[in-house]
């Protein structure tokens, strides 16, 4: 495991926070946004999420492919979900739906309501991603395990999360080596495709060797951990984490946000709100 996770937010305001705050913040935020179907509130929450993301100081250039993957993945989920459900019509009288047309083959109505549903869902997922990115890129590489452990996650799981964060970039490094091994045998990756989808297609021929090598390598790592008594009893975490006043204030802020959204949800924010500009004439 000789590749470090990319600590892109190093030194930023958010990276200086106790890592537990980042983990608890996303948990509180997720619990808040899942209650919301009111697009107006979701826009506000999305703004909060992206302001928070900005404080992590993650250069966009370094993560543009990750954002492209998120957009494609979330776009696919939202589109599929909207087509299957025809748009969640909670709080909407079916007789007052503003239908534009029906999708061929599926027969699903595409309406102002289903489009609002899709936009709200898209904003929700992107907001969640905005709070998730700092966990991957703005927590110090050796702080992830201690952070989860101090949140009372069992030691084995906490360390497993820590290792996973480093295993994934290692896997990426291994994949690049395998790609190089195939390129020197005339396999032209550039021809296979460009853009995020092309990159996914290019990885297909390397999945088998990378997976096998990763499994073989992981066995050695497991041996090495066993030989240093991992998982045989209660462990100490050398890294001490201390929350300062700013950490606590940030945490309280997210807790209040969660409470506020919960109250608003009870008062109608959990019902779908249709964006007026989508309603025809």
């Amino acid at each position: 495991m000789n590749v470090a996770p990319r600590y892109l937010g190093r030194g930023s305001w958010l990276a200086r926070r106790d890592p537990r705050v980042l983990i608890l913040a996303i948990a509180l935020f997720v619990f808040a946004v899942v209650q919301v179907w009111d697009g107006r509130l979701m826009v506000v929450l999305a703004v909060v999420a992206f302001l928070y993301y900005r404080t992590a100081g993650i250069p966009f250039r370094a993560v543009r492919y990750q954002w492209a993957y998120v957009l494609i993945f979330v776009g696919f989920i939202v589109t599929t979900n909207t087509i299957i459900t025809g748009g969640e019509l909670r709080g909407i009288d079916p007789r007052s739906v503003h239908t534009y047309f029906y999708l061929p083959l599926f027969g699903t109505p595409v309406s102002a309501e289903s489009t609002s549903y899709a936009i709200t869902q898209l904003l929700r997922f992107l907001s969640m991603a905005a709070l998730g990115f700092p966990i991957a890129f703005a927590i110090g590489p050796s702080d992830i395990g201690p952070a989860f452990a101090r949140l009372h996650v069992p030691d084995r799981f906490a360390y497993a999360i820590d290792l996973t964060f480093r295993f994934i970039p290692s896997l990426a490094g291994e994949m690049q080596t395998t790609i190089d091994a195939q390129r020197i045998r005339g396999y032209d990756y550039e021809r296979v495709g460009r853009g995020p989808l092309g990159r996914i297609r290019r990885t297909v021929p390397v999945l088998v060797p990378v997976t096998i090598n990763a499994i073989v390598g992981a066995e050695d790592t497991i041996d090495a951990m066993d030989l240093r008594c991992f998982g045989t009893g209660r462990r100490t975490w050398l890294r001490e984490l201390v929350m300062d006043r700013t950490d606590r204030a940030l945490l309280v802020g997210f807790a209040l946000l969660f409470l506020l959204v919960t109250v608003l949800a009870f008062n109608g924010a959990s019902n779908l709100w249709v964006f007026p500009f989508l309603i025809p004439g």
Partner: protein
Amino acid sequence: MSALLEVEDLTFTYRRATHPALRGVSLVVEPGEVLLVAGPSGCGKSTLIRSINGLIPHAYSGTLQGQVRLDGRNVAEMRLREVARYVGTVLQDPAKQIVGATVEAELAFGPENLGLPRTDIRERIGEVAERSGIRPLLGRETAQLSGGERQLVAVAGILMMRPRIFVVDEPLANLDPVTATRLLGILRALADAGEAVVIVEHRVEDVLDLRPDRVLYLDDGREVYQGAVAGFLAVADPRAVKLPFDVVLERVRQESAGGRSPGPLAMPWPVGAETPRGAPLRLEFVDVRAGFGAQEVLHGISAGLGARETVAVLGPNGSGKTTLFRTAMHLLPVTSGSILVDGASTRERSVAELAQVFGYVFQSPSQMLFARTVREELLFGPRNLGRDPETFDALIADVLRRTALDQLEGILDRPPLTLSFGQQKRLALAIALALHPVTLLLDEPNAGQDHRTATRFMAEVAAIPQLESLYFVTHDVDLALTHADRILLLRDGRVVADGPPARVIEDEDRWIGCNLRPTSLMRANARWRAGQASFLDATTLAQWVVTMERPAGARQTGRGGLGSTGR
């Protein structure tokens, strides 16, 4: 009173295996002792290590007979946690052993698992960092360490556990000679302080600095020799184990005195002299700069490698040796400067085009293998290049024959990853040859192979017909000196010397400054063959010396003779 470590009549057969990996091995190690375990690949060394450190039977299942006792207690009846307090194991590949994100986290990992108080762990970190000389590395991320630094950190991680027995598996495999010496110094200090060390290593000559008390030589799971180093040196086969030159010479003298001929002066490698002036260049670097992201590794390299040359690239860990090859193959872009192949810039050439000139064999062959069968693996390249399918059968037969893989029954239908390491290495070579390159680029050709297998592999490469040139990266000084016409010496991403071996080693300070050590073979060549451009391997040089010691009329010479040049 019982010994620190006792292995008694140990036999182990892995689950699903048909033959035992170890057969009736016994040994005793006392405090302060150093035991060297040697033997060819597959001789049972790893199984012995796993039996000592408790992974057998705790993590690997199979049939175990006999016992391993630590301080009189049967390992099979101890918990792994208890065993780890006695035995610390350093794996062959430190990259797989290191789990901490930073050096400090890595050192803390073991004591954290033991649940020690933080103050104790910090105290140990300070003490171990001092002892192993890695204090300047403490704040660094482990991913940023060089290969040598990583090995030292892996050892320090084990020192943190304060075990009484250190088991070290091939620690020198990826280290430059000076870093290797530093590591051996740490192990010697441990033994002097009363701990026991069990070290597994092919490079016997290099490990002699550690002053082992005894040697256990294994072959096919059985003990072939166990006893004092002097006795081992007297019986060891120099073709199977790398021995000091004086030992090889003495053995050849004894054989000669006993009436056995030292043999003809066979030259196992077509030794070339310096590339003649004006000879065509295959690969030329012109002020090349390259690196990874913001980190520049090559700082303006200029060098030309001949079309009919064997060139070894030497230098310390992290000096840019592999990076040089990767830029040549366009696997890494150059940030400035240019690379010429056969006089033409490679700027517009694809990796696929370059692959038809250069066959590149990675250090780890498994990184090149992915197909279901050897046949599919061999045809992957020719298919990508649109070669005629009618020629495939002949092509496969040819490359299998040239790499001696045709002797393995049913080789074409075997999954590549089920082959042994040495076979995988030869398959990687066959894969490269299937594209009909005229030059081979080998990255650490003998890493992970025992002396006999490595020697055979290089001999097989030398015997490949139609191959015009060979460029290889290595840490093995003797391999470079005996096989190359020319040495390219790198340090910190710059060429510090370039020329025939005899000239490059003239400046001993420069040699040592590149973390290289004068070996016994190097000194012997300098002594016995002063002024000669080429170096001989230990056995050939010993035969040469013995023949020269004979009266002139009794000498005979073999193929090539001493004056043979070039390919």
